């Protein structure tokens, strides 16, 4: 039992400290995307927390989505999500990703991200500041760290 506990703790520690991120724009205005990129740059430096922006969905743990989902982007979003190996998490960045934002009701917009794939963390803002994005990532990690919460997530999921 205790050995299992140690292994679990170690696994959680590794996951919490090494979130590799892949970014997908599903029809965003660029504002959020640029702010996500800004989190990597000297002032915010997400690498401090082990965050690494990866190109290949196969390498990534966290999918960051921006923008309302357009008809054309929907299939791609699903494909990117499916390409990611387990365990995987999704962060929706920006008002549009959360609710469709100003683009609600536009004919080529299907809706928000969680109508297509399950979302773990929502980061509001138009666009959210880089600090807010970092905070969102850290919140996600905090979630993983707390085993009680993790259990509830697993039960629910």
């Amino acid at each position, binding site marked *: 039992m205790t050995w299992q506990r140690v292994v679990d703790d170690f*696994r959680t*520690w590794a*996951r919490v400290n090494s979130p590799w991120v892949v970014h997908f724009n599903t029809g965003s205005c660029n504002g959020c995307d640029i702010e996500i990129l800004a989190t990597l740059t*000297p002032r915010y430096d997400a*690498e401090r927390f*082990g965050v690494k922006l990866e*190109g*290949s969905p*196969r390498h990534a743990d966290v999918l960051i989505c921006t923008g309302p989902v357009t008809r054309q982007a929907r299939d791609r979003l699903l494909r990117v999500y499916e390409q990611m*190996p387990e365990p995987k998490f999704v962060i929706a960045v920006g008002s549009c990703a959360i609710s469709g934002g100003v683009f609600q009701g536009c004919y080529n917009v299907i809706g928000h991200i969680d109508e297509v794939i399950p979302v773990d963390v929502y980061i509001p803002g138009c666009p959210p500041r880089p600090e807010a994005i970092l905070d969102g990532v850290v919140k996600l990690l905090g979630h993983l760290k707390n085993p009680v919460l993790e259990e509830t997530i697993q039960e629910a999921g």
Partner: protein
Amino acid sequence: MNTIQDLFTLMFFPGGLFVLALGMSYEWVDRKLMARVQNRVGPRWFQPYADIAKLLVKEEVIPADSNRLLFIGLPILALAGALTAALYVPLAGFDPLYSFKGDLIVALYLLSLLTVCTGLAGANTTDRFSLVGATRTLTQLFSYEAPFLLAMLGPAVVARSWQINEIIADADGQWLLIVQPVGFVVALIGLLGKLEIAPFNAPEAETEIVAGALTEYSGRGLALFRLGRHVELIVGLTMVAAFYMGGVSGLPLFVLKTLLLLLILVGIQSLVARLRIDQTVGLWWRWGVLLVLAQWLVLVIWEGVQA
């Protein structure tokens, strides 16, 4: 020598786990220095450990259209090659664990095994980025391998031996980089090429072909390849430091010299843009090979005259 002691040296110290730990620490130093140059804070000290551990516990997706055996086997082979190579070099300032005549050649080729495996791994999947990445990896292998080998053979000629042990004994205390500057520079730049870091990172150019040959790898396979790369970094640094910087006897001297080399590597890495693959090949065959060959000629003649 008894079996238990042998096993210990192979598995834990100074082979095996120790090499892996050392490799990851050096990887951290590399990333941290790079971040500092770029005005960033950079990763925490345990970052590479966390990365590898996370990758190891992550799901490994095996693409349906690739050869399963190769897909799983290649990363293991790559890491094994790098770890074996580590046994022949004076790691952490200790004498090489195993030594025989001609082990220099064996060590160099075991190091290349990693690159070949990476290339094959890329070619094993039908992903287009992987295929382009594999082509580039192998193209680059053919471009830097010969000059790097020649650069490594310079000290061997002086020592008149193909045995790493003897070369180091011969070079101990003399900074060969003063008498063989061309060899040193080519070896250093060859190391950049071997490790596929800027400006020779075209095989994994993120903006063109995502992650190159390893695009389809996730989880354990990727972890093993990365570990292999880290070990390669250590072995490469050790060899260059030992051959050209007056030996690495003793841990403090080893750390000092290899870190100095790493600092130079980071400096180059942060000051250059990525070369295109055709430019890389051109650079090596037009300049690298010719310069090293010229120096080699001088060395051989000089040795001949002395003899």
